Protein backbone atom coordinates (compact mmCIF):
# COMPACT_ATOMS: atom_id res chain seq x y z
CA UNK A 1 0.00 0.00 0.00
CA UNK A 2 2.81 2.35 0.97
CA UNK A 3 4.60 1.55 -2.29
CA UNK A 4 1.50 2.35 -4.35
CA UNK A 5 1.03 5.57 -2.47
CA UNK A 6 4.66 6.59 -2.97
CA UNK A 7 4.43 5.73 -6.66
CA UNK A 8 1.26 7.79 -7.08
CA UNK A 9 2.70 10.74 -5.20
CA UNK A 10 5.87 10.65 -7.24
CA UNK A 11 4.46 10.17 -10.74
CA UNK A 12 0.70 10.67 -10.84
CA UNK A 13 0.02 13.59 -8.53
CA UNK A 14 2.57 16.01 -10.01
CA UNK A 15 1.24 15.34 -13.51
CA UNK A 16 -2.35 15.76 -12.31
CA UNK A 17 -1.43 18.95 -10.49
CA UNK A 18 0.36 20.22 -13.59
CA UNK A 19 -2.64 19.48 -15.81
CA UNK A 20 -4.93 21.02 -13.24
CA UNK A 21 -2.98 24.25 -13.19
CA UNK A 22 -2.74 24.70 -16.99
CA UNK A 23 -4.19 28.09 -17.82
CA UNK A 24 -6.34 26.93 -20.71
CA UNK A 25 -7.88 24.16 -18.61
CA UNK A 26 -8.46 26.60 -15.76
CA UNK A 27 -10.23 28.84 -18.28
CA UNK A 28 -12.38 25.91 -19.45
CA UNK A 29 -13.31 25.08 -15.87
CA UNK A 30 -14.04 28.70 -14.98
CA UNK A 31 -16.02 29.18 -18.17
CA UNK A 32 -18.39 26.39 -17.14
CA UNK A 33 -18.53 27.60 -13.55
CA UNK A 34 -19.13 31.15 -14.79
CA UNK A 35 -22.35 30.13 -16.51
CA UNK A 36 -23.71 28.72 -13.25
CA UNK A 37 -25.86 31.65 -12.04
CA UNK A 38 -27.74 31.81 -15.30
CA UNK A 39 -27.76 28.05 -15.88
CA UNK A 40 -29.15 27.46 -12.38
CA UNK A 41 -31.93 30.00 -12.94
CA UNK A 42 -32.88 28.12 -16.10
CA UNK A 43 -32.62 24.78 -14.31
CA UNK A 44 -34.88 26.00 -11.52
CA UNK A 45 -37.42 27.16 -14.09
CA UNK A 46 -37.40 23.78 -15.83
CA UNK A 47 -37.62 21.95 -12.50
CA UNK A 48 -40.56 24.01 -11.28
CA UNK A 49 -42.28 23.27 -14.55
CA UNK A 50 -41.44 19.60 -14.14
CA UNK A 51 -43.02 19.62 -10.68
CA UNK A 52 -46.19 21.52 -11.53
CA UNK A 53 -46.59 20.69 -15.20
CA UNK A 54 -45.23 17.18 -15.72
CA UNK A 55 -45.11 15.26 -12.41
CA UNK A 56 -48.84 15.35 -11.59
CA UNK A 57 -49.54 13.84 -15.02
CA UNK A 58 -47.83 10.61 -13.87
CA UNK A 59 -50.62 10.10 -11.34
CA UNK A 60 -53.56 11.77 -13.08
CA UNK A 61 -53.74 11.44 -16.87
CA UNK A 62 -56.42 14.17 -17.07
CA UNK A 63 -54.14 16.73 -15.40
CA UNK A 64 -53.81 19.89 -17.52
CA UNK A 65 -51.80 22.69 -15.98
CA UNK A 66 -52.94 25.22 -18.58
CA UNK A 67 -56.44 25.03 -17.07
CA UNK A 68 -55.26 25.84 -13.53
CA UNK A 69 -54.98 29.55 -12.71
CA UNK A 70 -51.71 30.74 -11.15
CA UNK A 71 -49.93 27.48 -12.07
CA UNK A 72 -50.48 28.16 -15.76
CA UNK A 73 -48.99 31.62 -15.32
CA UNK A 74 -46.01 30.24 -13.38
CA UNK A 75 -45.33 27.79 -16.21
CA UNK A 76 -45.46 30.66 -18.71
CA UNK A 77 -43.06 32.80 -16.66
CA UNK A 78 -40.68 29.85 -16.34
CA UNK A 79 -40.80 29.51 -20.11
CA UNK A 80 -39.37 33.01 -20.45
CA UNK A 81 -36.63 32.24 -17.93
CA UNK A 82 -35.71 29.09 -19.87
CA UNK A 83 -35.73 30.99 -23.17
CA UNK A 84 -33.18 33.49 -21.85
CA UNK A 85 -30.94 30.91 -20.18
CA UNK A 86 -30.74 27.24 -21.14
CA UNK A 87 -32.24 27.67 -24.60
CA UNK A 88 -29.35 29.98 -25.47
CA UNK A 89 -26.73 28.30 -23.29
CA UNK A 90 -24.28 28.52 -26.19
CA UNK A 91 -24.36 32.33 -26.16
CA UNK A 92 -23.85 32.42 -22.41
CA UNK A 93 -20.99 29.95 -22.59
CA UNK A 94 -19.33 31.88 -25.43
CA UNK A 95 -19.29 35.02 -23.28
CA UNK A 96 -17.99 33.15 -20.25
CA UNK A 97 -15.33 31.34 -22.29
CA UNK A 98 -13.96 34.50 -23.90
CA UNK A 99 -13.96 36.32 -20.61
CA UNK A 100 -12.21 33.59 -18.63
CA UNK A 101 -9.70 32.74 -21.33
CA UNK A 102 -8.66 36.40 -21.49
CA UNK A 103 -8.62 36.70 -17.72
CA UNK A 104 -6.27 33.76 -17.13
CA UNK A 105 -3.83 35.43 -19.51
CA UNK A 106 -4.27 38.76 -17.74
CA UNK A 107 -5.89 40.72 -20.56
CA UNK A 108 -9.20 42.60 -20.70
CA UNK A 109 -11.98 40.05 -20.16
CA UNK A 110 -14.86 42.05 -21.59
CA UNK A 111 -13.29 42.43 -25.02
CA UNK A 112 -12.36 38.74 -24.97
CA UNK A 113 -15.96 37.82 -24.13
CA UNK A 114 -17.26 39.89 -27.03
CA UNK A 115 -14.74 38.39 -29.45
CA UNK A 116 -15.78 34.89 -28.44
CA UNK A 117 -19.49 35.72 -28.75
CA UNK A 118 -19.02 37.35 -32.15
CA UNK A 119 -17.07 34.31 -33.35
CA UNK A 120 -19.95 32.02 -32.40
CA UNK A 121 -22.58 34.19 -34.06
CA UNK A 122 -20.54 34.21 -37.29
CA UNK A 123 -21.16 30.50 -37.58
CA UNK A 124 -24.89 30.55 -36.90
CA UNK A 125 -27.34 29.91 -39.70
CA UNK A 126 -28.62 33.33 -40.64
CA UNK A 127 -31.07 32.57 -43.42
CA UNK A 128 -33.35 29.75 -44.51
CA UNK A 129 -33.08 28.80 -48.21
CA UNK A 130 -36.04 30.43 -49.97
CA UNK A 131 -37.23 31.63 -46.59
CA UNK A 132 -36.80 34.48 -44.13
CA UNK A 133 -33.41 36.12 -43.62
CA UNK A 134 -31.83 37.49 -40.47
CA UNK A 135 -32.90 35.18 -37.66
CA UNK A 136 -30.94 32.95 -35.34
CA UNK A 137 -32.17 29.38 -34.87
CA UNK A 138 -32.03 28.00 -31.33
CA UNK A 139 -30.31 24.81 -32.50
CA UNK A 140 -27.22 26.94 -33.19
CA UNK A 141 -27.33 28.70 -29.85
CA UNK A 142 -27.61 25.76 -27.45
CA UNK A 143 -25.18 23.56 -25.59
CA UNK A 144 -23.90 21.81 -28.71
CA UNK A 145 -22.17 25.03 -29.76
CA UNK A 146 -19.79 24.68 -26.80
CA UNK A 147 -17.34 22.72 -28.92
CA UNK A 148 -17.36 25.30 -31.72
CA UNK A 149 -16.91 28.05 -29.17
CA UNK A 150 -13.98 26.31 -27.49
CA UNK A 151 -12.26 25.74 -30.83
CA UNK A 152 -13.00 28.76 -33.03
CA UNK A 153 -13.82 31.13 -30.18
CA UNK A 154 -10.64 29.89 -28.52
CA UNK A 155 -8.66 30.64 -31.66
CA UNK A 156 -10.00 34.17 -32.13
CA UNK A 157 -9.57 35.00 -28.44
CA UNK A 158 -6.05 33.52 -28.52
CA UNK A 159 -5.15 35.84 -31.42
CA UNK A 160 -6.65 38.75 -29.50
CA UNK A 161 -4.60 37.83 -26.40
CA UNK A 162 -1.35 37.37 -28.33
CA UNK A 163 -1.64 40.71 -30.11
CA UNK A 164 -2.48 42.49 -26.86
CA UNK A 165 0.54 40.88 -25.19
CA UNK A 166 2.77 41.91 -28.11
CA UNK A 167 1.34 45.41 -27.86
CA UNK A 168 0.12 45.46 -31.47
CA UNK A 169 -2.53 47.93 -30.44
CA UNK A 170 -3.70 51.51 -30.89
CA UNK A 171 -2.00 53.63 -28.27
CA UNK A 172 -3.79 56.65 -26.87
CA UNK A 173 -2.33 59.42 -24.69
CA UNK A 174 -2.45 58.95 -20.90
CA UNK A 175 -5.00 61.75 -20.66
CA UNK A 176 -7.67 59.52 -22.30
CA UNK A 177 -10.00 57.92 -19.71
CA UNK A 178 -9.12 54.22 -19.00
CA UNK A 179 -12.45 52.81 -20.25
CA UNK A 180 -11.98 54.45 -23.66
CA UNK A 181 -8.31 53.63 -23.78
CA UNK A 182 -9.01 49.96 -23.00
CA UNK A 183 -11.61 49.71 -25.78
CA UNK A 184 -9.28 51.30 -28.32
CA UNK A 185 -6.41 49.07 -27.27
CA UNK A 186 -8.55 46.04 -28.08
CA UNK A 187 -9.61 47.15 -31.57
CA UNK A 188 -6.74 45.73 -33.65
CA UNK A 189 -6.34 42.46 -31.69
CA UNK A 190 -10.10 41.84 -31.64
CA UNK A 191 -10.51 42.57 -35.32
CA UNK A 192 -7.60 40.28 -36.19
CA UNK A 193 -9.09 37.45 -34.13
CA UNK A 194 -12.52 37.90 -35.67
CA UNK A 195 -11.17 38.06 -39.23
CA UNK A 196 -9.19 34.87 -38.66
CA UNK A 197 -12.37 33.10 -37.57
CA UNK A 198 -14.35 34.61 -40.44
CA UNK A 199 -11.80 33.37 -42.99
CA UNK A 200 -12.07 29.86 -41.52
CA UNK A 201 -15.86 30.01 -41.74
CA UNK A 202 -15.59 31.22 -45.33
CA UNK A 203 -13.13 28.51 -46.42
CA UNK A 204 -15.36 25.94 -44.76
CA UNK A 205 -18.39 27.23 -46.65
CA UNK A 206 -16.53 26.71 -49.93
CA UNK A 207 -15.27 23.23 -49.10
CA UNK A 208 -16.81 20.92 -46.51
CA UNK A 209 -19.82 23.17 -46.16
CA UNK A 210 -20.42 23.68 -49.88
CA UNK A 211 -23.59 21.60 -49.67
CA UNK A 212 -24.98 23.79 -46.93
CA UNK A 213 -23.43 22.23 -43.83
CA UNK A 214 -22.63 24.70 -41.06
CA UNK A 215 -19.42 24.61 -39.03
CA UNK A 216 -21.42 24.27 -35.80
CA UNK A 217 -23.26 21.22 -37.16
CA UNK A 218 -20.09 19.73 -38.59
CA UNK A 219 -18.14 20.12 -35.34
CA UNK A 220 -21.08 18.62 -33.45
CA UNK A 221 -20.99 15.64 -35.76
CA UNK A 222 -17.24 15.14 -35.94
CA UNK A 223 -16.17 16.04 -32.39
CA UNK A 224 -19.18 16.22 -30.08
CA UNK A 225 -20.93 13.08 -31.28
CA UNK A 226 -17.99 10.70 -30.73
CA UNK A 227 -17.17 12.25 -27.34
CA UNK A 228 -20.75 12.13 -26.13
CA UNK A 229 -21.12 8.63 -27.54
CA UNK A 230 -18.07 7.57 -25.59
CA UNK A 231 -19.46 9.18 -22.46
CA UNK A 232 -22.39 6.77 -22.51
CA UNK A 233 -20.20 3.69 -22.22
CA UNK A 234 -19.63 2.10 -18.84
CA UNK A 235 -15.85 2.28 -19.23
CA UNK A 236 -15.83 6.07 -19.46
CA UNK A 237 -18.32 6.47 -16.60
CA UNK A 238 -16.32 4.13 -14.36
CA UNK A 239 -13.00 5.72 -15.30
CA UNK A 240 -14.13 9.23 -14.44
CA UNK A 241 -15.62 8.02 -11.14
CA UNK A 242 -12.33 6.33 -10.33
CA UNK A 243 -10.24 9.36 -11.24
CA UNK A 244 -12.38 11.78 -9.22
CA UNK A 245 -11.90 9.60 -6.13
CA UNK A 246 -8.20 9.22 -6.79
CA UNK A 247 -7.70 12.98 -7.06
CA UNK A 248 -9.61 13.60 -3.83
CA UNK A 249 -7.59 10.96 -2.04
CA UNK A 250 -4.34 12.64 -2.98
CA UNK A 251 -5.57 16.06 -1.89
CA UNK A 252 -6.57 17.44 -5.26
CA UNK A 253 -10.03 18.75 -6.09
CA UNK A 254 -11.23 15.94 -8.37
CA UNK A 255 -14.21 17.61 -10.05
CA UNK A 256 -12.17 20.80 -10.49
CA UNK A 257 -9.29 19.03 -12.21
CA UNK A 258 -11.70 17.04 -14.36
CA UNK A 259 -14.19 19.86 -14.97
CA UNK A 260 -13.27 20.23 -18.65
CA UNK A 261 -14.33 16.61 -19.17
CA UNK A 262 -17.15 16.38 -16.62
CA UNK A 263 -18.81 19.62 -17.66
CA UNK A 264 -17.63 19.70 -21.26
CA UNK A 265 -19.03 16.26 -22.09
CA UNK A 266 -21.51 15.02 -19.48
CA UNK A 267 -22.61 18.58 -18.64
CA UNK A 268 -23.43 19.26 -22.29
CA UNK A 269 -25.46 16.05 -22.37
CA UNK A 270 -27.37 17.23 -19.32
CA UNK A 271 -28.20 20.56 -20.96
CA UNK A 272 -29.62 18.73 -23.94
CA UNK A 273 -31.76 16.61 -21.61
CA UNK A 274 -32.97 19.74 -19.82
CA UNK A 275 -33.93 21.48 -23.03
CA UNK A 276 -35.68 18.40 -24.41
CA UNK A 277 -37.57 18.05 -21.12
CA UNK A 278 -38.69 21.68 -21.21
CA UNK A 279 -39.95 21.24 -24.73
CA UNK A 280 -41.73 17.91 -24.38
CA UNK A 281 -41.25 16.35 -20.96
CA UNK A 282 -39.77 12.90 -20.34
CA UNK A 283 -41.28 11.58 -23.56
CA UNK A 284 -39.20 14.01 -25.60
CA UNK A 285 -36.08 13.02 -23.66
CA UNK A 286 -36.64 9.30 -24.19
CA UNK A 287 -37.57 9.76 -27.84
CA UNK A 288 -34.25 11.45 -28.59
CA UNK A 289 -31.90 9.00 -26.87
CA UNK A 290 -29.43 8.02 -29.57
CA UNK A 291 -30.67 10.67 -32.00
CA UNK A 292 -27.81 11.16 -34.49
CA UNK A 293 -28.62 14.88 -34.69
CA UNK A 294 -26.50 16.16 -31.82
CA UNK A 295 -28.55 19.34 -31.41
CA UNK A 296 -31.56 17.24 -30.48
CA UNK A 297 -29.91 14.15 -28.98
CA UNK A 298 -30.54 13.26 -25.34
CA UNK A 299 -28.51 11.00 -23.11
CA UNK A 300 -29.01 8.32 -20.45
CA UNK A 301 -25.99 9.17 -18.31
CA UNK A 302 -25.24 12.86 -17.75
CA UNK A 303 -23.37 15.07 -15.29
CA UNK A 304 -26.06 14.93 -12.59
CA UNK A 305 -26.19 11.13 -12.71
CA UNK A 306 -22.92 10.99 -10.78
CA UNK A 307 -24.38 13.18 -8.02
CA UNK A 308 -27.61 11.18 -7.95
CA UNK A 309 -26.11 7.72 -7.56
CA UNK A 310 -22.42 7.87 -6.62
CA UNK A 311 -21.46 10.86 -4.53
CA UNK A 312 -24.08 10.86 -1.78
CA UNK A 313 -22.70 12.51 1.32
CA UNK A 314 -19.84 13.77 -0.83
CA UNK A 315 -17.27 11.96 -2.94
CA UNK A 316 -16.67 8.41 -1.80
CA UNK A 317 -20.28 8.10 -0.63
CA UNK A 318 -18.95 9.07 2.78
CA UNK A 319 -22.36 9.42 4.41
CA UNK A 320 -22.36 5.60 4.46
CA UNK A 321 -18.95 5.68 6.14
CA UNK A 322 -20.41 7.90 8.84
CA UNK A 323 -23.23 5.41 9.32
CA UNK A 324 -20.72 2.56 9.52
CA UNK A 325 -18.73 4.47 12.15
CA UNK A 326 -21.84 5.01 14.28
CA UNK A 327 -22.63 1.31 14.09
CA UNK A 328 -19.23 -0.38 14.24
CA UNK A 329 -16.48 1.96 15.35
CA UNK A 330 -14.96 1.65 18.79
CA UNK A 331 -12.69 4.61 18.28
CA UNK A 332 -13.61 7.78 20.12
CA UNK A 333 -11.81 9.94 17.54
CA UNK A 334 -13.80 8.37 14.67
CA UNK A 335 -17.07 8.79 16.55
CA UNK A 336 -16.31 12.44 17.26
CA UNK A 337 -15.55 13.09 13.60
CA UNK A 338 -18.68 11.21 12.53
CA UNK A 339 -20.81 13.36 14.84
CA UNK A 340 -19.22 16.49 13.36
CA UNK A 341 -19.56 15.15 9.84
CA UNK A 342 -23.13 13.92 9.83
CA UNK A 343 -24.77 17.36 9.51
CA UNK A 344 -22.71 18.55 6.53
CA UNK A 345 -22.79 15.01 5.15
CA UNK A 346 -26.56 15.16 4.72
CA UNK A 347 -25.86 18.03 2.32
CA UNK A 348 -23.05 16.12 0.57
CA UNK A 349 -20.26 18.09 2.24
CA UNK A 350 -17.62 15.72 3.58
CA UNK A 351 -14.74 17.98 4.53
CA UNK A 352 -14.89 17.12 8.25
CA UNK A 353 -14.58 13.42 7.44
CA UNK A 354 -12.04 13.82 4.65
CA UNK A 355 -9.64 15.79 6.85
CA UNK A 356 -10.81 14.66 10.27
CA UNK A 357 -10.30 10.89 10.08
CA UNK A 358 -8.50 11.62 7.71
CA UNK A 359 -9.35 9.93 4.41
CA UNK A 360 -6.91 12.05 2.42
CA UNK A 361 -3.64 10.09 2.13
CA UNK A 362 -4.86 7.47 4.62
CA UNK A 363 -3.88 4.10 3.09
CA UNK A 364 -6.52 2.15 5.01
CA UNK A 365 -9.26 4.29 3.45
CA UNK A 366 -8.00 4.23 -0.14
CA UNK A 367 -9.73 1.02 -1.22
CA UNK A 368 -13.25 1.79 0.06
CA UNK A 369 -12.99 5.43 -0.97
CA UNK A 370 -12.40 4.34 -4.55
CA UNK A 371 -14.47 1.17 -4.58
CA UNK A 372 -17.69 2.47 -2.96
CA UNK A 373 -18.46 5.16 -5.58
CA UNK A 374 -17.44 2.78 -8.37
CA UNK A 375 -19.96 0.19 -7.22
CA UNK A 376 -22.59 2.87 -6.59
CA UNK A 377 -22.03 4.30 -10.07
CA UNK A 378 -22.34 0.82 -11.56
CA UNK A 379 -25.69 0.32 -9.84
CA UNK A 380 -27.00 3.70 -10.97
CA UNK A 381 -25.63 3.20 -14.47
CA UNK A 382 -27.15 -0.24 -14.96
CA UNK A 383 -30.50 0.86 -13.53
CA UNK A 384 -30.57 3.76 -15.98
CA UNK A 385 -29.35 1.83 -19.01
CA UNK A 386 -31.80 -1.02 -18.35
CA UNK A 387 -34.67 1.46 -18.09
CA UNK A 388 -35.40 0.70 -14.45
CA UNK A 389 -35.26 4.41 -13.72
CA UNK A 390 -35.68 7.56 -15.79
CA UNK A 391 -32.49 9.33 -16.85
CA UNK A 392 -31.46 12.54 -15.11
CA UNK A 393 -33.28 15.37 -16.82
CA UNK A 394 -33.00 18.15 -14.22
CA UNK A 395 -30.08 20.09 -12.80
CA UNK A 396 -30.16 19.85 -9.04
CA UNK A 397 -27.60 21.58 -6.88
CA UNK A 398 -25.15 19.09 -5.42
CA UNK A 399 -25.92 20.11 -1.83
CA UNK A 400 -29.41 18.63 -2.09
CA UNK A 401 -29.77 15.68 0.36
CA UNK A 402 -29.11 12.37 -1.42
CA UNK A 403 -32.49 10.68 -1.93
CA UNK A 404 -34.27 13.93 -2.66
CA UNK A 405 -31.53 14.74 -5.14
CA UNK A 406 -32.10 11.68 -7.30
CA UNK A 407 -35.89 12.09 -7.02
CA UNK A 408 -35.76 15.68 -8.26
CA UNK A 409 -32.99 15.06 -10.81
CA UNK A 410 -35.15 12.47 -12.54
CA UNK A 411 -38.13 14.85 -12.51
CA UNK A 412 -39.87 12.94 -9.79
CA UNK A 413 -39.27 9.32 -10.70
CA UNK A 414 -40.09 7.49 -7.45
CA UNK A 415 -37.78 4.63 -8.45
CA UNK A 416 -34.71 6.89 -8.41
CA UNK A 417 -34.44 7.12 -4.59
CA UNK A 418 -34.79 3.33 -4.47
CA UNK A 419 -31.82 2.98 -6.83
CA UNK A 420 -29.93 5.44 -4.64
CA UNK A 421 -30.85 3.34 -1.61
CA UNK A 422 -29.45 0.18 -3.23
CA UNK A 423 -26.24 2.05 -4.11
CA UNK A 424 -26.19 3.46 -0.58
CA UNK A 425 -26.48 -0.04 0.92
CA UNK A 426 -23.69 -1.36 -1.31
CA UNK A 427 -21.43 1.51 -0.26
CA UNK A 428 -22.18 0.83 3.37
CA UNK A 429 -21.22 -2.84 2.95
CA UNK A 430 -17.91 -1.75 1.37
CA UNK A 431 -17.07 0.81 4.06
CA UNK A 432 -18.04 -1.28 7.11
CA UNK A 433 -15.11 -3.77 7.12
CA UNK A 434 -12.61 -0.93 6.90
CA UNK A 435 -14.19 0.84 9.84
CA UNK A 436 -13.92 -2.41 11.80
CA UNK A 437 -10.30 -2.82 10.65
CA UNK A 438 -9.54 0.69 11.90
CA UNK A 439 -10.65 -0.43 15.37
CA UNK A 440 -7.83 -2.94 15.57
CA UNK A 441 -5.40 -0.41 14.14
CA UNK A 442 -6.11 1.76 17.14
CA UNK A 443 -5.61 -1.18 19.48
CA UNK A 444 -2.29 -1.94 17.82
CA UNK A 445 -1.18 1.64 18.38
Amino acid at each position, binding site marked *: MQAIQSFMEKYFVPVA*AKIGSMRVLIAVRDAFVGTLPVAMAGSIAVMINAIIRDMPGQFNPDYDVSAIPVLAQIVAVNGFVWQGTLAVAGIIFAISWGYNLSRVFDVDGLAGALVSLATLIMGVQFAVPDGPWGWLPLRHLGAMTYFTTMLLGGLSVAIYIILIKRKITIKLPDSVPPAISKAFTAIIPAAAGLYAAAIIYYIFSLTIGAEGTFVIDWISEVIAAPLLGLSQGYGAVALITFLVSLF*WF*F*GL*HGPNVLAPILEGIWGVGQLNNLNAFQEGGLQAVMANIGNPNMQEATFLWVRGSFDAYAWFGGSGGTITLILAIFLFSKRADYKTIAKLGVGPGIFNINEPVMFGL*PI*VLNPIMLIPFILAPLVATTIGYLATIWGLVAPVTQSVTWVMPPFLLSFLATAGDWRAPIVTLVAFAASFVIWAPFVIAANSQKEAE
Partner: protein
Amino acid sequence: MITINLAQNQADAIALLEAYQGGDFSYKFEGKQGIRMKFSVTGDPEQAGKKAKDLIKSQQWGTNLYFNVMIG
Protein backbone atom coordinates in the same frame (compact mmCIF):
# COMPACT_ATOMS: atom_id res chain seq x y z
CA MET B 1 -2.74 29.17 15.92
CA ILE B 2 -4.24 27.80 12.70
CA THR B 3 -4.12 24.30 11.25
CA ILE B 4 -3.99 23.77 7.51
CA ASN B 5 -4.92 20.30 6.28
CA LEU B 6 -3.09 20.03 3.00
CA ALA B 7 -1.76 16.92 1.27
CA GLN B 8 0.13 18.45 -1.65
CA ASN B 9 2.53 21.37 -2.05
CA GLN B 10 3.14 21.61 1.69
CA ALA B 11 6.58 23.18 1.25
CA ASP B 12 5.15 25.74 -1.18
CA ALA B 13 2.40 26.65 1.28
CA ILE B 14 4.86 27.04 4.18
CA ALA B 15 7.17 29.22 2.10
CA LEU B 16 4.25 31.30 0.82
CA LEU B 17 2.78 31.99 4.25
CA GLU B 18 6.06 32.62 6.03
CA ALA B 19 7.07 35.08 3.32
CA TYR B 20 3.74 36.91 3.46
CA GLN B 21 4.23 40.58 4.29
CA GLY B 22 0.80 42.09 3.83
CA GLY B 23 1.05 43.88 7.15
CA ASP B 24 -2.22 42.50 8.51
CA PHE B 25 -0.98 39.06 9.63
CA SER B 26 2.18 37.05 9.84
CA TYR B 27 2.53 33.26 9.83
CA LYS B 28 5.14 31.07 11.47
CA PHE B 29 5.30 27.37 10.71
CA GLU B 30 5.31 25.40 13.96
CA GLY B 31 5.33 21.83 12.71
CA LYS B 32 3.32 19.18 10.95
CA GLN B 33 1.86 15.75 11.44
CA GLY B 34 0.86 14.04 8.20
CA ILE B 35 -1.40 16.41 6.29
CA ARG B 36 -1.87 18.73 9.29
CA MET B 37 0.38 21.78 9.39
CA LYS B 38 0.30 24.16 12.33
CA PHE B 39 1.06 27.86 12.07
CA SER B 40 1.19 30.46 14.79
CA VAL B 41 -0.32 33.71 13.58
CA THR B 42 -0.47 37.31 14.64
CA GLY B 43 -3.82 39.06 14.64
CA ASP B 44 -7.28 37.49 14.57
CA PRO B 45 -6.76 33.76 13.86
CA GLU B 46 -10.06 33.48 12.01
CA GLN B 47 -9.18 36.29 9.61
CA ALA B 48 -5.62 35.00 9.33
CA GLY B 49 -7.02 31.59 8.41
CA LYS B 50 -9.24 33.08 5.71
CA LYS B 51 -6.30 35.05 4.37
CA ALA B 52 -4.12 31.92 4.30
CA LYS B 53 -6.79 30.09 2.33
CA ASP B 54 -7.08 32.94 -0.17
CA LEU B 55 -3.32 33.17 -0.53
CA ILE B 56 -2.95 29.46 -1.30
CA LYS B 57 -5.90 29.45 -3.70
CA SER B 58 -4.51 32.42 -5.59
CA GLN B 59 -1.33 30.54 -6.50
CA GLN B 60 -1.15 28.68 -9.77
CA TRP B 61 -0.22 25.51 -7.88
CA GLY B 62 -3.08 26.12 -5.47
CA THR B 63 -6.07 26.34 -7.77
CA ASN B 64 -6.90 22.65 -7.67
CA LEU B 65 -5.71 21.75 -4.19
CA TYR B 66 -8.20 20.23 -1.81
CA PHE B 67 -7.47 21.58 1.64
CA ASN B 68 -9.04 23.28 4.61
CA VAL B 69 -8.02 25.69 7.34
CA MET B 70 -9.06 25.27 10.95
CA ILE B 71 -8.63 27.65 13.84
CA GLY B 72 -6.60 26.28 16.70
